[in-house]
């Protein structure tokens, strides 16, 4: 289905709109006719082509031509408001996307067989009299192998939403058959008032189909500024003036199918053109009207980011909020100091955890009761969260700066185009630096998310603030190193025995997750009741909210309700561990006898997540006469298996982080049996990308198996891929290892 295409287009074209009008049917029909005539009449030779090269004949689908046209024209207008009149600027946007695809199989036919789109949307402002709106026009033609062109009557649609504000419809494409070419366009037209912010456009020169020709054409009026950036070998725009308008054109031909999906960073690996149109706006990032800015220096984007920060500060009253929070944290610190003399260098940590507690853990009587797993997945608005935290630290005399970081999956820090490309990280600047991030409920102080590792970043410092003003200054660049594989560890420690009936393996397992390996499992396994209580005590907060509620006449019943909600969450807990075991071993356990969290890893001082499980697995021990064969390789759990299409690779490898997997397994040989074949378990595959090492020894009736798999680096050049495959394959080969338990 084509939903994804239109969805992508709408993302590219979407703007946050303030007012508009749903068109009358007559207006709409007139406009549809004009747009169809114009788009089908585009003089782009690629759309006249009817043949694909023989090399592409076996592709399920080929994008023969793709063209996107952006127009942004603005003009000044007077508007009469309730008590006054104002000069006002309106902008007319059109974003038209046309694609011509050769359909070579049923799956591709299915992909293009239905279109679903927002036909119109009323976008209104309270003072508007004549409201304008957003209209989307669809055109579809089918080109038969004999060259005949059949235009689809898209009015033969079904409405899936039809009210005063919005109309959405669906069209099933009639007459489309394998062997046809489908030529369609989606044109979104909007009329906007200035005072909004456009979303940037993204032209990605890559798809899951080969693209024979891809062109982009932009006409931007003189009252708009344009900025763009060409990344990863994307074609540059050719820029020219047509009267006062800026005309930008780009073209790219013969683009092969995008490479394998595994361990990619598309923003760094696919040719991409990014374009942004600015028409002023509430964000006071100024560009000169009529100018075209190509690959702006990142220093400019830092300036923009500072403007953004200030807008967040003023708009959300972050200064006021920070002061109130300081007032809340102060007595907590005082109380803590009374119980346990808080050392001076612990203050930033305490502040961070107190702030995290207030944001994610603290319960107020008016809150909705939310103690289930969904609570673990809460995430803050990172930027506002960290600005407030920076201000709080500042108020407590903890000097700090804000590092402007970019994700491994986004552009490099020096390739940024927009302030939104930056994420924030706090760094304290005195003594041993402490980093603070805002990933979520379980983010520890001094934790650096892997996606920000391995780059040099600019930074800014808050040089004083009041409730109403803030001063920001540039600061030195910061180098964030990469964490080593030894810091990101999954350690499985297992005692495995055979059941009395010799049909199951019994596991007693302790799992330790360190560094980057930790947060996902914390979200999946921790219970709010437990982590709330642990953090409350760690922060020196005397009474739990349950105690406070129980003592309150008004909220007494709430304590009972929370007790019921906690009980329900705990009842569902076993299923979460069962799922975890199933995921880890790619096999559902027969039963789970024990599941327990030994350490929640909530603090940097004790950061590992440790949990224990006891369960049995069936089918991993098989009888052969009087003897038994044990699938001992399966004890290391499921391992990455490459798809055939992933074996060949000529693009670099972006893994989440360098990491280590350890398996310390004690296998108990049942009485009356002797183990054979353990010497075959020894493996040592080591190269510059990592290692897979298995060592074994037998002590009495215990076979001690130690297996370590290491991915040494988070990033590898494409040329190293075969070496990485050696490690992946060694782990896979080990999985089929067996030992014999011989009777006698």
């Amino acid at each position, binding site marked *: 289905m084509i939903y994804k295409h239109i969805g992508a287009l709408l993302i590219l074209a979407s703007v946050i709109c303030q007012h508009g009008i749903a068109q009358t049917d007559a207006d709409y029909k007139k406009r549809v006719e004009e747009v169809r005539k114009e788009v089908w009449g585009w003089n782009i030779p690629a759309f006249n082509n009817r043949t694909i090269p023989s090399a592409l004949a*076996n*592709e*399920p689908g080929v994008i023969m031509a793709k063209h996107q046209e952006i127009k942004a024209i603005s003009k000044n207008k007077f508007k009469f408001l309730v008590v006054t009149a104002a000069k006002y600027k309106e902008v007319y946007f059109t974003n038209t996307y046309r694609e011509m695809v050769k359909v070579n*199989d049923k*799956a*591709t036919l299915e992909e293009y*067989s239905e279109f679903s789109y927002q036909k119109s949307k009323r976008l209104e402002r309270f003072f508007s009299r004549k409201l304008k709106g957003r209209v989307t026009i669809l055109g579809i033609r089918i080109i038969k192998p004999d060259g005949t062109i059949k235009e689809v009557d898209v009015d033969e649609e*079904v*409405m*899936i*939403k039809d009210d005063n504000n919005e109309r959405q419809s*669906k069209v*099933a494409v*009639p*007459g489309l058959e394998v062997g046809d070419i489908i030529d369609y366009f989606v044109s979104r037209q909007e009329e906007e008032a200035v005072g909004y912010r456009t979303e940037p456009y993204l032209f990605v020169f890559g798809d899951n189909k080969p693209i024979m020709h891809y062109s982009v054409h932009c006409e931007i009026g003189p009252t708009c500024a344009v900025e763009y950036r060409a990344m990863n070998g994307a074609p540059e725009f050719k820029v020219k003036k047509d009267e006062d308008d800026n005309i930008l054109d780009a073209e790219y031909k013969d683009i092969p199918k995008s490479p394998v999906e595994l361990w990619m960073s598309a923003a760094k690996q696919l040719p991409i053109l990014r374009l942004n149109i600015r028409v002023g706006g509430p964000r006071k990032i100024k560009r000169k009207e009529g100018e075209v800015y190509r690959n702006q220096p990142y220093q400019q984007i830092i300036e923009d980011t500072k403007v953004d920060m200030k807008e967040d500060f003023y708009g*959300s009253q972050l200064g006021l*909020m920070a002061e*109130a*929070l300081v007032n*809340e944290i102060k007595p907590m610190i005082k109380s803590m100091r009374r119980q346990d003399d808080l050392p001076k260098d612990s203050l930033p940590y305490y502040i961070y955890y107190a702030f995290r507690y*207030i*944001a994610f853990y603290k319960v*107020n009587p008016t*809150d*909705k009761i*939310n*103690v*289930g*797993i*969904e609570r673990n997945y*809460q*995430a*803050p*608005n990172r930027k*506002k969260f960290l600005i*407030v935290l920076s201000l709080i630290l500042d108020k407590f005399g903890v000097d700090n700066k804000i590092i402007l970081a970019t994700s491994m999956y986004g552009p490099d820090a020096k390739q940024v185009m927009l302030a939104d490309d930056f994420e924030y990280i706090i760094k304290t600047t005195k003594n041993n630096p402490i980093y603070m991030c805002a990933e979520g409920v379980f983010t520890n102080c001094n934790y650096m998310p892997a996606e920000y590792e391995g780059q040099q970043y600019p930074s800014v410092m808050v040089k004083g603030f009041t409730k109403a003003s803030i001063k920001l200054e540039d600061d030195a660049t910061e180098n964030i190193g990469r964490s080593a594989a030894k810091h990101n560890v999954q350690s499985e420690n297992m005692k495995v025995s055979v059941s009395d009936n010799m*049909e199951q393996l019994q596991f007693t397992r302790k799992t330790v997750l360190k560094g980057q390996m930790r947060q996902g499992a914390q979200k999946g396994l921790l219970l709010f009741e437990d982590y709330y209580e642990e953090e409350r005590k760690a922060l020196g907060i005397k009474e739990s909210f349950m105690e406070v509620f129980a003592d309150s006449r008004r909220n007494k*019943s*709430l304590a009972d*309700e*929370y007790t*019921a*909600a906690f009980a*329900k969450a705990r009842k569902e807990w076993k299923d979460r561990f069962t799922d975890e075991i199933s995921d880890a071993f790619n096999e*559902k356990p027969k039963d789970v006898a024990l599941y327990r969290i030994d350490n929640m890893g909530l603090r940097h001082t004790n950061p590992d997540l440790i949990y224990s499980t006891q369960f049995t697995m*069936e*089918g991993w021990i*098989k*009888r*052969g*006469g009087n*003897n038994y*064969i044990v699938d001992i390789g399966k004890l290391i759990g499921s391992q990455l*298996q490459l798809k055939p299409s992933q074996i060949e690779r000529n693009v670099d490898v972006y893994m989440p982080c360098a990491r280590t997997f350890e398996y310390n397994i004690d296998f108990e040989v049942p009485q009356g049996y002797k183990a*054979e*074949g353990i010497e075959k378990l020894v493996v040592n595959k080591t190269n510059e990308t990592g290692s897979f090492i298995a060592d074994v020894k037998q002590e009495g009736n215990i076979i001690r198996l130690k297996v370590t798999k290491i991915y040494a680096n988070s990033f590898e050049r494409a040329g190293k891929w075969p070496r990485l495959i050696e490690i992946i394959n060694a782990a896979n080969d080990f999985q*089929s290892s*067996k030992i*014999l338990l*011989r009777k006698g």
Partner: protein
Amino acid sequence: MNKLTKLPLLLLVSFTVTASCTYGLPGKSYASPGDDNVVISSKTEKYEFTYGSADNPVLINEQLNTVFRCDGYRTDIPYVEFYDDQSAIKEVNIFVDGKKNKLIRPKYEYYSIENIFYSDARVCYFQLPLEKKGSQSEVQVSKTINDPRYFSTIYFSESYKVENKQVILVVPQWMHIDIREMNFEGYKISRQKENKGESVVYTYIIQQLEARKNEPRSPGPSYIYPHLLVLSQYADVNGKKLTYFNTVADQYAWYRHLVLQTGNDAAVIKEKAQEITKGISSDTAKVKAIYNYVQDNIRYIAFEDGIAGFKPEKAQEVLKKKYGDCKGMANLTKELLQAAGFDARLCWIGTNHIAYDYSTPSLSVDNHMICALRYKGKFYFLDATETYMGFDQYAERIQGRQVMIENGEKYILEKIPVCTPSQNIETEKRIVRVDGNNLVGTASHQLRGESKEWLLTRIHSLKKDKLATALQSYLSENDHKYVITQLETSDLNERNNGLTIHYQLDYKDAVSGFGDELYIDMDFRKDMDNADIRLDKRTTDWVFPYKQNLVYETELVIPQGYKISELPAGLAIEEPAYSFKVNYKAAGEKLVYRKEITIKDTRLRKSVFEKWNTSISLLKKCYNEQVTLTKK
């Protein structure tokens, strides 16, 4: 102080964004249906037949009053009420803790149903707060159904446990209905019938009714939940008799008047029929060609659209558009066959999701349309929505179902043939020898009927550059050590013959050598090894998608210098609903392993779950047996 206590809330609320969470919205706690935190303490459903307008002379006014109670902790629950082109919601009143709440604004939207391109179903929904433990919230909904034909079932079960429910039907003397009580067994439902003025009032009361539970592979709700079938027979309105579905003949007449409005273009269809059957002389080949043409060229798109939900699209339109729903495809098949000189008719049928047959005149009886061919005195049924089923093969969902066949002013009731599991046989034969630690050799598969349909539907949904890889993944069960080369298949678009697959096999590390012994797992396809049923959780029968007949055979050439030292015992389980047979047979230098799993009845009843689990346990035990070869 007040300011301070509010700030953190502000902080969290203003900071919290939707996380990439599959469990729900962070920051909100919604009770899910079936949740024992919430019960329906009482519900009253009142249905009253009244006079309507000239267009809709008889209406049914529906008043639904539902009181929810929170038993554990405060929460919000989703309240959902459906309506469609034939019904309307007139008023919704919401009471929270006894007070009318006007701030909650119900939303009214089209309801999107997976795999249905368009449906007239609409939904009215909102979040209903339950303010604290013990508090109650009530929703009162007034609805109108415009045509008694569409008022056919009243279910007692709800998404939450019901403590007390009343269903009241007020039937004026001028309205004639028949009420059938379905699945009442095992439930305490009291009933009362009394005359009140000019009406008869039927009252049903049920207490302590468990919540509906959505379980995978369950029988359709009409098999398992207590409900009423309301059969609107006729009405005397202003001295005029309005007949609805007094008999099945009335229902047929109504269907027929709709299909007679279709407006097929005989000339266009005849031309197409001639094109499809050109050069074909035998009748059956012509029928197959037409059937296969519709299967191959018409994309199935589901429409459920009020009255249009009963009226087929014109055959020439379906032909032109290359898509259609079941009615459109059945009508096109029928028209093409008729144009080619065959006696073809439309048929109405309820799939096995529905518990009723045409002994009940009601729109609830059927949900599908197919085509019947009468040839040499026998009916054959063609359902082109089953894309890869052959002629005279039948999908489980229609097998044994009563079918209403068009026959001029009358109709014919027939039954779709019931097929044995062998229709869907899936065989695999491997001939392998030991090569070091590997098993190498050849493998051949044959798939027929629904097992073929299942596989071909899936692989044709993949792009053709991925098809070979997908087929290999299916055959190797994603085991990268099961290396397949020289893969050959029969025509993947062929419908009337079985699908055959041949390949060379190199199954690495399939042989475990210890000392003088070789241990070999003769069966790496452990079919049904995870098929045991959780007796503590499952509440409904299990329904298999189709009758299965899996026959796997592996012939192992005993390596020179080795002999068989131990053969596993095998297994033989024969039950009315299924059978599992595993045996090992040594024959000279060969060892033949044969496994046959047959699902004879697709409905595995709760009463046999324990026996089934025992059988699965024995099957698993059998899978854990290996053949031992010892050096001579």
